[in-house]
């Protein structure tokens, strides 16, 4: 169904084929995903919407290479993630995907700069270069002056900006954001969205963003609704804006 909707500038970067995931705990079987087929193109900004328990997070984990599907496949740039060894998965997570979490997940005992350079250390970048690149990234998110601060000394918005800089550390092809603005107030949330839009437009980053935030509608290219482990609807932004009323109804 997604084949009909194509993006202007891209080839496929994420493709899922009949993706299914069962969680079995004792005798209780939970079907988190019941067959998801999606194609996402390079340079796209996708909003992933759905109520809690809809399978949104499960979908996220599959795409991010953080969990393996029960059946079906996930291709990232035509590489089958399920075929990768643990060491190759680490490589994928380190260089190809940037993660942004709702609760920032910065390493508490490292400074802003050290947090940003940690993925570079894992990638084997030498310390001097990592430092230069880290400072550039902090400048990009507007925190150049605060590079020596620890997370505990920063506000939520600042921490999330450090997290964005960190996710960009190894020039990934894909940013996965899990409710990036959920813990932030309106104003700082808007700043974060602004940075994400800037990365999408100026750096041509592909961004997949799970969210409940209405403002995401203004900046994303496409929206994907997930409900009960299935894709409920996929739509381009211009299509959605016409039907804003019904969106509001769905989100409630």
């Amino acid at each position: 169904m997604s084949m009909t909707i194509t993006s202007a500038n891209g080839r496929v970067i994420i493709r899922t084929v009949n993706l299914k995931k069962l969680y079995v705990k004792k005798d209780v079987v939970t079907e988190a995903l019941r067959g998801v087929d999606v194609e996402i193109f390079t340079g796209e900004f996708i909003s992933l919407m759905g109520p809690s328990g809809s399978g949104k997070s499960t979908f996220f984990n599959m795409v991010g290479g953080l969990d393996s599907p029960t059946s079906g496949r996930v291709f990232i740039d035509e590489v089958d993630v399920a075929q990768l060894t643990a060491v190759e998965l680490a490589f994928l997570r380190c260089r190809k995907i940037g993660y942004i979490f709702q609760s920032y997940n910065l390493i508490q005992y490292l400074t802003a700069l050290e947090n940003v350079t940690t993925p570079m250390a894992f990638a084997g970048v030498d310390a001097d270069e990592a430092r230069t690149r880290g400072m550039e990234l902090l400048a990009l998110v507007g925190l150049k002056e605060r590079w020596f601060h620890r997370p505990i000394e920063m506000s939520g918005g600042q921490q999330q900006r450090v997290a964005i800089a960190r996710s960009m550390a190894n020039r990934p092809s894909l940013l996965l954001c899990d409710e990036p603005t959920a813990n932030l107030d309106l104003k700082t949330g808007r700043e974060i969205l602004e940075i994400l839009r800037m990365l999408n437009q100026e750096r041509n980053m592909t961004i997949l963003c799970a969210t409940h935030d209405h403002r995401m509608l203004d900046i994303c290219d496409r929206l994907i609704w997930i409900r009960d482990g299935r894709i409920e609807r996929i739509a381009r932004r211009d299509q959605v804006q016409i039907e804003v009323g019904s969106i509001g109804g769905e989100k409630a």
Partner: protein
Amino acid sequence: MKQIEIKDQPPLGIGRTVSLTLTGIRYRLFRSLVTVGVVAVAMAFLMNVWSESLVRGAVLRATTLRAAQLHQAFVWATKLTNPGTPDSILTGMAAPHPEAVDEAMSMAKLPPGDRLFLESRCRQATGYLRFFAALDYGARRQLLRQAQGTAIFDGLQSASAQADFFAKAKEMQSLQLPGGDETFQKFLREWPGVKEKLECIRAARAAAIAQLQPSLRGHTAMETLAGADGAFGAAIRAAGFRFPEDMARTVAEQARQACDSQWLEAGLLRPTVRQAVAGRLDLTLNEVNPLVLWEFLKSREAAGWYLDRLKEANVSVAGLTPERLMALAHVQTEEMMLAQLLPLEAGTEEGETGIQERMLWLILVSMVVCAVGIANAMLMSVTERFREIATLKCLGALDSTIMGMCVIEATVLGVTGGAAGALAGTLLGVGRMSAAFGGIAVRTLPTGPLALAMAGSVLVGIALAAVAALYPSFKAARLAPMEAMRVE
């Protein structure tokens, strides 16, 4: 944008892993200190047990040596009046004192060629006697009936007794004669020859004692030994005993001390003296005993006062000065202290393995406590941080890097805790032993073994920490990175 190429992720360099870990430890200083505390307490316990047993061992060795030196006069007094029994001679020959064997060989005029044979058979014999003594009562009674000591070998000379013995020995499944049955049979065949030589030595000793009899001139051996550094010493040597000059001087001095002490203690038997001492010390008459007396005589003033009381009671005190009394008092109190320590030593002798086993057991328990403590602390630290660990995995950390971080952390904590605990345990152990044994513990402090034990226990601490961290670090490394994705 270029196509994704997937390669193997390189591991994080050791230097960077260490610095990342150290930064973490510094940040969680309090919790790390608690872990260090757990390790330190366990290592302190280990080191305390260890150092106390080392100090105790050193004290006992020193005590035994000192006691043996102090009792030379008594040993010689016995030796010059009693030729001994085949059993005591056998024990003397088997002991590692070449001079005693020399003396026996030359006194009994045995050919030097017999020496090796005699020594080896005597050692073999004491080995068998020790083996039989260690048997439980029922088994011994069945095998040997009532026989004790060398009489056992005498009783087994007849062919029928031997056949009976080996038949019974065979029935006792767990019984294993040292060296096997054939060796014992061979030994039994040689025993009459050995016994003949032992009797020969005994007879020679009896003759030597008889030769000395005129020199005693009706005095006791101890009184005569007071002159052992003079003519009597020469007489002893002439009789064939090995009695070198320096030994003679020691024995003479000790004999004089023993005689004087006897005199002084005998003074207490005079009612007037006893009453005076009781009055002076504010004790009842019954409470006045040599122990109290020697403690009292340690001061010059008290010694002088006691001599005056003896003079008043018409006890001959010729040649005794207050200084002499004080010196005697010190020797006597030391001897009494040694007498109190010696039962300890008897304990080691009797149950040598008993004490060792108990110590090993204590050490083992403390190690288990230590390992569990560290494992628990590490498990807590891992559980507490699993969001951090999962995040690191999202950022590209390998399982091995996470494990490495955990093991490095445990090792750092193990080194710190081990060193602190070893030091504290040693100080505590040495302090306790000094309090118990006084100056003798400090004088005989086994610094070398203690330092080795400390180094050992630090190593043990590191090893334990590393082993105890294995499971938690394995758990941490296997943690799914999606844990980090989960909303709080």
